[in-house]
């Protein structure tokens, strides 16, 4: 294909979509809607993975000793943990360290700890297991050890989130497929209208020797113009929307203090989002055109 012919196709594609303003607009909107839903899904699952990753790296178990026990008893507990073959490694958190961590967490509110000594905190052990599957039995065994008050167990949360994000993905995938198929057919319908409007022109082109593809390309371009426009709008909306959510999130005192959840910044996700949108837009737009041509453009 020659450059000037390509230019002709693009020009004709723009003319087509402009002549057919209202339907083009409707198609753009449906593409925007589908892509935003897709974008929300992508952003949520990216963040879920991000958090699951963080949790998985975090201590899987933390065993807290009774606050009153003395160093000798603590050492006895430590011996037991050290001897356990299911445990990969452990880290002892002294009373002083515990105090220091709490100060860090409280940040500017740390003053409330003034006047208290480290002795109000218990000694604890952060334990990493060789394998996640040992976790429930290890917890059971540790809870029986004299000197250990309780064992906190973040595995439940990880599992819950994993499961939730699995079901969430499934639900979203179904919705995305429905919307994308709808987009394809609405674009196809828009192009059908253009084809009908240009029926006479197409037949004249055939008489003077235009090849099938010469006639078809402007319609493909029209479909892609519609979907790319939709993608650009969807990108703007979802990028700004996400940024707003992240801003609100970081201002939330609860999440800021507990570090329970964190969100990816817009800078780290926008390029991925843009690539997804662009690819989907081109595929959906071209697919719409082809559906339409198969049905209505028997050149």
């Amino acid at each position, binding site marked *: 294909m*020659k450059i*000037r*012919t390509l230019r*002709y196709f693009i020009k004709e594609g723009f003319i087509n979509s402009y002549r057919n303003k209202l339907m083009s607009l409707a198609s753009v909107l449906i593409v925007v809607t589908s892509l935003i839903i897709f974008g929300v899904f992508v952003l949520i699952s990216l963040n879920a993975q991000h958090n699951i990753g963080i949790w998985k790296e975090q201590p899987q178990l933390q065993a807290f000793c009774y606050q009153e026990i003395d160093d000798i008893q603590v050492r006895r507990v430590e011996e037991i943990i050290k001897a356990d073959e299911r445990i990969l490694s452990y880290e002892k958190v002294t009373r002083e360290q515990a105090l220091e961590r709490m100060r860090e967490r409280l940040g500017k509110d740390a003053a409330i700890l003034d006047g208290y000594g480290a002795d109000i905190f218990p000694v604890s052990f952060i334990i990493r297991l060789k394998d996640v599957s040992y976790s429930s039995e290890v917890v059971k065994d540790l809870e029986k050890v004299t000197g250990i008050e309780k064992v906190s167990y973040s595995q439940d949360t990880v599992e819950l989130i994993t499961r939730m994000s699995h079901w969430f993905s499934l639900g979203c995938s179904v919705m995305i497929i429905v919307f994308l198929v709808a987009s394809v057919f609405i674009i196809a319908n828009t192009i059908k209208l253009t084809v009908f409007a240009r029926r*006479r*022109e197409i*037949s*004249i*082109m*055939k*008489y*003077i*020797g*235009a*090849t*099938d593809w*010469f006639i078809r390309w402007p319609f493909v371009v029209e479909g892609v113009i519609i979907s790319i426009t939709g993608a650009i709008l969807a990108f703007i909306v979802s990028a700004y929307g996400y940024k707003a959510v992240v801003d609100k999130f970081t201002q939330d005192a609860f999440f800021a203090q507990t570090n329970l959840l964190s969100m990816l910044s817009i800078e780290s996700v926008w390029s991925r989002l843009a690539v997804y949108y662009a690819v989907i837009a081109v595929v959906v737009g071209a697919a719409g055109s082809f559906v339409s041509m198969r049905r209505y453009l028997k050149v």
Partner: protein
Amino acid sequence: MVELRNVSKTYANGTVALRDINLRLDKGEFVFLVGPSGSGKSTLVKLLLKEEDATEGEVYVNGYDVTSMTRQEIPYLRRSLGVVFQDFRLLPNKTVYENVAFAMIITEALPKEIRRQVPMALALVGLSRKANMYPHQLSGGEQQRVALARALVNNPALLIADEPTGNLDPETSWEIMKLLSEINHRGTTVIVATHEKSIVDAMKKRVVAISKGVIVRDQEKGLYRDEDKNTPVLY
């Protein structure tokens, strides 16, 4: 140039449009294809353009074996010939110049070539001054001349005109026919399907008469009707 060998055409609904047609046109000829409506002359034109396929027989146009040609080859056959229709078939939203240039754009011609050829074609049909007008601003005769310019702009060896004067008044019809004749003098083979009796009779060209799907007469310097049959000639 054009050859039909034992060509028959039966439409899907059973209508027999052409029956065992044998016809040969040499380079540089001017041929009138005459006959009443429904005689099969439009079908014959459609076979030459491969708008319809012959049920039997072989069709050759401009060196193309039309009968065995694939769909992908059809555009190239059509580019090798110029076609003019009764209803002009111009693009309403393009100017005269653009309409003519369009026939070159689809062949992916060089812009330089387009700028050279289009004014020449317009000059040939005498419409240079109306290049920037739209079809609806022109008279019927002028529109047909634009269609002619478009048909000629790619320098085809063969020009097919299907009822080119069907929508025009007698005087304008004459102008178009003179133009066709002039084009023929420049070396282009011309086929004109018509039932414009007075023109056919006056021009004294080869006449192929079709009736009920059969060639009933093929005569050099012929008339619309065969005089031996004593049909009155009205002017």
